[in-house]
């Protein structure tokens, strides 16, 4: 039972982390109609920045804040230098251009930080386990990821739905020319949104960094998961991204933890332990296939796109 609660919390933590990634991806797509494969690179860069700045300042928190700002700046620079030229193009061009950016960023990181991975050590106060319910201990760091992600998700909702900037963002998504004609600097707005998406990816990256090693190509595996989430949730829908991210987080985590045991009940033990790792990493793709068979546009489609 303890294990089950712990795995549920892990699922929640992973799901929320994936949401941060998927939200940036879907925000950029929903508003600028831009498919950004290089989103995972920004996740990677966030992690590298965090490792570097933490080592320089000697403080995990200060390093994280600096990394967040740096990733935001990198995102805005990327938008101005490359993305801006891709808006009017079709999706194939987006995919190719941003794929080029992945290659570029991977090599750039190798050039700056070298081929070996980095470690981002946690400060002591985040390492102790916390007793959440009597008898159940849980990692303070993972708990803090859950809290931070929830705050960011809430903040994103308020920003998009309740503020003037959010209103402009939503208006710009529906009709770019009209908003521009009303005297809004739509170009600046797009740069800001892209920077925001980058910062979200960077946040996910730097929070994941102490759990995994910071390494080249770390964004590529998780990017696929973020894609799966945006497809399940409906591209362009932040609400869909949240629901789908939680689904995927739970299914992936619980699947890996309990699926082998379930399989052992129906299959001979040897066959089960060979098949289990492959099958449990397939689960989310099965989920995606089922969702698409039922609703080809995703669960919360943002309409015709």
């Amino acid at each position: 039972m303890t294990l089950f609660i712990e795995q549920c919390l892990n699922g929640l933590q992973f799901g929320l982390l994936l949401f941060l990634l998927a939200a940036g991806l879907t925000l950029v797509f929903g508003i600028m109609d831009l498919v950004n494969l290089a989103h995972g690179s920004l996740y990677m860069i966030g992690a590298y920045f965090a490792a570097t700045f933490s080592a320089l300042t000697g403080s995990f928190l200060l390093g994280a804040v600096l990394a967040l700002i740096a990733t935001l700046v990198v995102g805005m620079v990327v938008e101005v230098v490359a993305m801006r030229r891709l808006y009017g193009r079709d999706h194939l061009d987006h995919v190719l251009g941003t794929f080029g950016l992945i290659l570029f960023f991977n090599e750039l990181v190798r050039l700056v930080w070298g081929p070996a991975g980095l470690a981002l050590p946690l400060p002591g106060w985040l390492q102790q386990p916390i007793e959440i319910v009597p008898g159940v201990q849980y990692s303070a760091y993972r708990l803090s990821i859950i809290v931070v992600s929830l705050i960011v998700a809430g903040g994103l909702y308020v920003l998009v739905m309740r503020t003037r900037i959010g209103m402009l963002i939503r208006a710009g998504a529906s009709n770019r020319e009209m908003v521009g004609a009303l005297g809004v600097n739509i170009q600046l707005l797009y740069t800001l949104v892209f920077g925001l998406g980058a910062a979200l990816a960077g946040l996910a990256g730097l929070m994941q960094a102490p759990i995994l090693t910071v390494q080249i190509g770390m964004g590529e595996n998780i990017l696929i998961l973020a894609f799966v989430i945006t497809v399940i949730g409906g591209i362009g829908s932040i609400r869909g991204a949240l629901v789908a991210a939680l689904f995927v987080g739970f299914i992936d985590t619980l699947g890996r933890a309990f699926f082998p045991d379930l399989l052992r009940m129906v299959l001979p033990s040897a066959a089960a332990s060979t098949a289990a790792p492959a099958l449990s990493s397939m689960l989310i793709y099965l989920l995606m296939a089922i969702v698409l068979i039922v609703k080809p546009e995703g669960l919360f489609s943002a309409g015709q796109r």
Partner: protein
Amino acid sequence: MPSLTIRNTVVALVIVALLLLPVYSYLAGDRFMLTLFTRIVILALAAVSLNFILGFGGMMSFGHAVYLGLGGYAVGMLSYEGIHSGFIQWPVALGVSALFALVIGALSLRTRGVYFIMITLAFAQMAYYIVSGIARYGGDDGLTIDTRSRFFPPLNLSDKTQFYYVCLFFLLAAVYLTFRIVNSRFGMALQGIRSNELRMRAIGFPTYRYRLVAFVIAGVMCGLSGALLANQADFVSPSVMYWTRSGDLIIMVVLGGMGTVAGPVMGTIAFLVLEEILPVIIKFIGLPFVGTAAAGRASEYWMIVMGPLLLLVVLFARGGIDGLLMKLDERFGLRRQP
């Protein structure tokens, strides 16, 4: 009768050069060239198959490298189990690819645009994880193939020259097949669906079925390429079907010229030759902004040039190499402006 334009001349020269390459390799004693071009010819076959659905069918599959893996693993797994006959291995490779393409296509083609891109990508990743998880066939580490596919005695795939010509035969056959298909009624309908699916459906074409058939044809072609690639490397690993490999295939198609018969072949040559040459150039220049310690390793950093180069091609040279050749023809009045 094709007219004598720069574009047609270049294509003809490329074919002649490919046909004569083993002769050069033999005379100059340059074995590396033959190995490199065997790889180029095999991957060009994969690019041709991707171009068939991407360029002519408008289906932006981002999981095409999965068939490289499926074809390769069909050969590898059978070989591991002691079945070395190519007459069994290759039909299995094609059959598995066809089946996968049928299932994945049937699901993915229900969707459009970005959804299609991401779904093909995700299904390919699924296959990648399955193969990585099978410990019996090497899992993550891949599977070494001890014996190349065996055919009747005169045909010996271990002979580099013979193997090269086998690969080249399949490539030229695939290019010819593409040429025949795109000019057939089926191909015309496919291109009609690419430009306006609604209209095609309105005049009575079962568009879903047309697209699915094209998707399966491309899958089978690429599965063959996978079987060849596994034979060439004597090795197959999950990494051949990793999603960035699919990206590489798309680059080859776009670099050469999407939706043209010969473009993907030229694109593959350009991509793989750049892969060989760029590190040398970078090493020569020595990347001034790198410290001296890193300068020795500079050749590893060729992607830092390749990446932006790709972005530039996308932004400024949409037609790829084929488009450039056509522009040259227009410049010299060999082709009327469209």
